[in-house]
C-alpha cells in the first residue's frame, strides 16, 4: 500500500536516569537527570502520530505534541523546539513540573496497552537542548503603542508577557520579591527545577523586550487603578498567585517550630538558607520534621528538609496514598528517599516543650467515610485513637488562602473566599484588568497558570484590537524580506545566545 508504512514502536517506555536515591538525599542537585539524544529519539519513535491527537486537547496550552515529537524522531531538533515554543514558552520548566500523567499522557492511546509516550520527558529534553544550544524563538515584532503591566512574575505572568510582547506591546512585569520567577523561584526546589533553567527562560523573555521590575509590590507602591489610570497601562494582567498559607487552627499553631511550607521553601530556595551562614537567612530544622499534607508542596518541603540534613522526615496525611494530590513521580521519589508516610493520620494539637518550642504533635487516626464534594472519601477521626508524635518542627502544607493586598487596595470584585472574580475571558470587574492563575482558581499547577496567562493575552489582544505579528505578515511573495528578515521564516529570527 503506497504511502502507508507499518511500523512497530518500541514497547518499553525509555527510562529516565535519576540520581541514586541515597546520594541525592544529601544534595540539592537535580534528581531526574533527563534523556540524552539517543534516549529521546528512541522514545519519540513510540509516538503513533495520531491524526486527531487526544494529547493536544488534554494539554492546557494545546502544544502540537505529535508535531514536536515527530521532528525529534527525524532529528530536526530545532524544528521541534520551534513547534514547542510556539505554544509553550517554557518547555524546560513544564517538562519538569507538569503533571503529565493526568494530562497529555493520560489520554495517549499507546497507554491503553503499554506505558504511554513519555511526552513530558521529551518536552524537557528539547527545552534543555534549546538552552544548551542557545536557541530562542524571537519573531519579528512590530511595535504597537499599547503598554501592558503584569503583576507577578510567576508562570502565568511569564506566559502572558511573552504573548503580549510577541504582539508588539510594551510589557513590564512587576515582582514583589527581589528575584523574578514567583513560585518557580521561591517554591519549587532546585533539585526539581534548577535556577539556571528559570534564568534561561527569563533571558528569552528579555530578548522579546519584556522588562522586569523587582521589589515592587503592586497595591502599595501604586494601585491597580493607578496602573490603568495615571501610569498609562492599557492593559493589566494580575497573576499574583494564591499567596497566604493556611494553618490548621489547632492549639499550638503559634509555637516556635511551626511554620508554613511556603516559609520553609522560601527560606531555602529564594533566600538560600541551605547555605547559611554564607547567605544570611537561617532555617534551623532540628532532628525530626513532620510535614502535614501530601500535595506537591508537602513533597517539596519534605525533600528539602531531608537535604538540609534532617534525620527523620515524616508525612502526616489525613487520607490515604490514593487520595494524595501530589504528582506521582514526586511521591515515588519521596518514598525512595526514605520519607516516612503516615497515612490516615491528622494532628489535633501541637505540643509545647515548655519553652515555646515544638516537642511533637498529638495525632488521631482517621478512617475514610462518605465521598465529599471533591469526590474523595472524607476522613473521619477514629475515637480514642490519639497518640503522641514526636517532632522538632511541624510544617503545614495544607493549602493557601488568597493574598489580601490587592483586595485591600483596589475595588476589584472578589468572590466570597477572596479570590478575584473573572468572566470567561478572564476579565475582572475593572475594564482593562485581567486576572488568572492561582489568584483566580486557588492553588493549581504551573501549566494551568500558564494556560491562564495565554488566555488572558488572547482576551487582551482582542480588547486592544491587535493581531499577532504572524497573521499580519501573510504576504503573497514568499521570497520577500521585511526589514531584512525573510518572510518565509515566518518572521522568526534565530538568535544565538551571547
Amino acid at each position, binding site marked *: 500500500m503506497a504511502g502507508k508504512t507499518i511500523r512497530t514502536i518500541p514497547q518499553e517506555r525509555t527510562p529516565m536516569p535519576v540520581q541514586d536515591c541515597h546520594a541525592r538525599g544529601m544534595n540539592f542537585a537535580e534528581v531526574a537527570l533527563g534523556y540524552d539524544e539517543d534516549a529521546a529519539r528512541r522514545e519519540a519513535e513510540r509516538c503513533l502520530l495520531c491524526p486527531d491527537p487526544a494529547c493536544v486537547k488534554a494539554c492546557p496550552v494545546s502544544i502540537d505534541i505529535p508535531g514536536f515529537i515527530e521532528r525529534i524522531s527525524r532529528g530536526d531538533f530545532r524544528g521541534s523546539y520551534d513547534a514547542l515554543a510556539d505554544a509553550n514558552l517554557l518547555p524546560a520548566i513544564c517538562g519538569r513540573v507538569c503533571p503529565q500523567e493526568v494530562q497529555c499522557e493520560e489520554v495517549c492511546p499507546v497507554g491503553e496497552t503499554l506505558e504511554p509516550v513519555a511526552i513530558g520527558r521529551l518536552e524537557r529534553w528539547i527545552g534543555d537542548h534549546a538552552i544548551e544550544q542557545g536557541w530562542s524563538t524571537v519573531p519579528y515584532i512590530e511595535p504597537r503603542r499599547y503598554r501592558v503591566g503584569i503583576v507577578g512574575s510567576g508562570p502565568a505572568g511569564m506566559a502572558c508577557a511573552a504573548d503580549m510582547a510577541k504582539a508588539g506591546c510594551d510589557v513590564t512585569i512587576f515582582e514583589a520579591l527581589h528575584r523574578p520567577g514567583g513560585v518557580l523561584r*521561591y517554591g519549587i526546589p532546585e533539585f526539581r527545577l534548577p535556577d539556571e533553567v528559570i534564568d534561561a527562560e527569563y533571558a528569552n523573555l528579555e530578548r522579546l523586550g519584556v522588562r522586569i521590575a523587582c521589589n515592587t509590590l503592586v497595591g502599595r507602591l501604586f494601585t491597580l487603578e493607578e496602573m490603568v489610570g495615571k501610569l498609562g497601562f492599557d492593559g493589566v494582567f494580575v497573576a499574583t498567585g494564591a499567596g*497566604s498559607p493556611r*494553618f490548621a487552627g489547632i492549639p499550638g499553631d503559634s509555637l516556635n517550630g511551626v511554620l508554613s511550607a511556603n516559609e520553609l521553601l522560601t527560606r531555602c530556595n529564594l533566600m*538560600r538558607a541551605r547555605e547559611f551562614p554564607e547567605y*544570611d537567612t537561617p532555617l534551623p530544622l532540628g532532628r525530626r520534621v513532620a510535614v502535614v499534607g501530601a500535595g506537591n508542596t508537602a513533597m517539596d518541603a519534605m525533600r528539602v528538609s531531608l537535604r538540609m540534613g534532617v534525620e527523620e522526615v515524616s508525612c502526616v496525611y489525613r487520607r490515604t496514598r490514593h487520595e494524595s494530590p501530589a504528582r506521582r513521580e514526586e511521591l515515588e521519589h519521596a518514598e525512595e528517599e526514605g520519607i516516612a508516610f503516615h497515612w490516615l493520620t491528622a494532628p489535633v494539637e501541637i505540643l509545647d516543650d515548655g519553652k515555646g518550642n515544638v516537642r511533637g504533635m498529638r495525632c488521631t487516626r482517621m478512617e475514610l467515610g462518605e465521598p465529599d464534594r471533591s469526590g474523595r472519601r472524607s476522613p473521619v477521626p477514629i475515637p480514642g485513637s490519639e497518640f503522641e508524635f514526636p517532632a522538632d518542627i511541624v510544617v503545614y502544607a495544607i493549602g493557601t488562602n488568597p493574598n*489580601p493586598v490587592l483586595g485591600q487596595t483596589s475595588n476589584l470584585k472578589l468572590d466570597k473566599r477572596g479570590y478575584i472574580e473573572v468572566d470567561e475571558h478572564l476579565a475582572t470587574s475593572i475594564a482593562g484588568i485581567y486576572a488568572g492563575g492561582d489568584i483566580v482558581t486557588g492553588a493549581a499547577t504551573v501549566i494551568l497558570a500558564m494556560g491562564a496567562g495565554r488566555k488572558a493575552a488572547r482576551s487582551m489582544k482582542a480588547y486592544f484590537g491587535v493581531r499577532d505579528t504572524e497573521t499580519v505578515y501573510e504576504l503573497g511573495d514568499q521570497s520577500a524580506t521585511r526589514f531584512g528578515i525573510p518572510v518565509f521564516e515566518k518572521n522568526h529570527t534565530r538568535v544565538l545566545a551571547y
Partner: protein
Amino acid sequence: MGREDFSETTYMLEISDPMMAHVARAGQFVIVVLHERGERVPLTIADFDRERGTITLVIQAVGKTTRQMQQECRVGTRLFGMAGPLGKPASIGGVRKVICVGGGLGVAPVFPQVRAFKNAGAYVIGVIGFRNKDLVFWEEKFRRYCDEMIICSDDGSVGIKGLVTKGLEMSMDKHADTDRVVAIGPPIMMRACTETTRPRKIETIVSLNPIMVDGTGMCGGCRVRIGDDVRMACVDGPEFDAHTVDFDDLMSRVGRFKEQERQALERWTNNGCNLRTDCNRQSS
C-alpha cells in the same frame, strides 16, 4: 543615599526612591536587602520627604546585617533591593487628642505619626524615651509638631527620670480626654504601655515587628495572635489594637532564631569586619 550617625550603634539612612517617597504613609515599613546574599530586613519608615524623594530609616546595629549596613552604607552606596511601602498605613483621621509614645529606637517610626496627626488637626502629645542623654535624637523634629512633649530617660540625664510609661501616665492624668495612644518600640515597652492604658480604656495602637521573610503575606512567618485570630503583621498590620495583642506570643516568636543570629554575627565579626569604634558624622 545619605547618612547620619546618632550614636555608636544608632544610625540614620536617607535613601533616594522618589516613587516610594511619593506614596509612603505613616505606619508603613520597607524591606531592605543589603546585598545579593543578604536577608530581607523589615524596617519601619522613620520619615519620608516627598519633595526630595527620600525615605528615612533609623537603624540600630544589633545583628549581623544591621552592623554590616552600618559599616557599608555610606553616602552614594546603593542597596541591592528595597521593597515598599509595605503594610497598611496608620489610620489618622477622627482623633482630637493623641499621645504618641516612642521608646528607644521606636522614637523614629513614631515621628511620621506625630506629623500626620498634627497635620490632621489633632492635639499631639509626644512622649519619647531614651536610655540616656547621649542617645537622644530628633528632639527638634518632634518639638516642631508636638503641642506638648515629654522626654524620659532611664538615668534622668535628660527630661524626667523613668520609663516612657511614666511619661504616658503623666500625660493621661493631665489629659483625661485623650482619644488614642500610639506606642512604638521594643515589644516589652509596647506591652508596658498597653497595660498602662488598659485600665483607662483608651484606644491604643502598637506597631508590631515580628520576624518576616517576604513581607507580602506569603510565608506566614510574621503571624501574630490578635484576640482569637491569627493575623499576618505584614499585610494585616503592622499596626494592631494593643489591647487584643498577645505579647507573650510575639516575644517568644521574635526570639526564634536567636542561636542562628548569634552564629551569623560571630562569624561575621571574626571574618575581619573592622568594627569601627569611632563614629563618623556624615550628613547628606
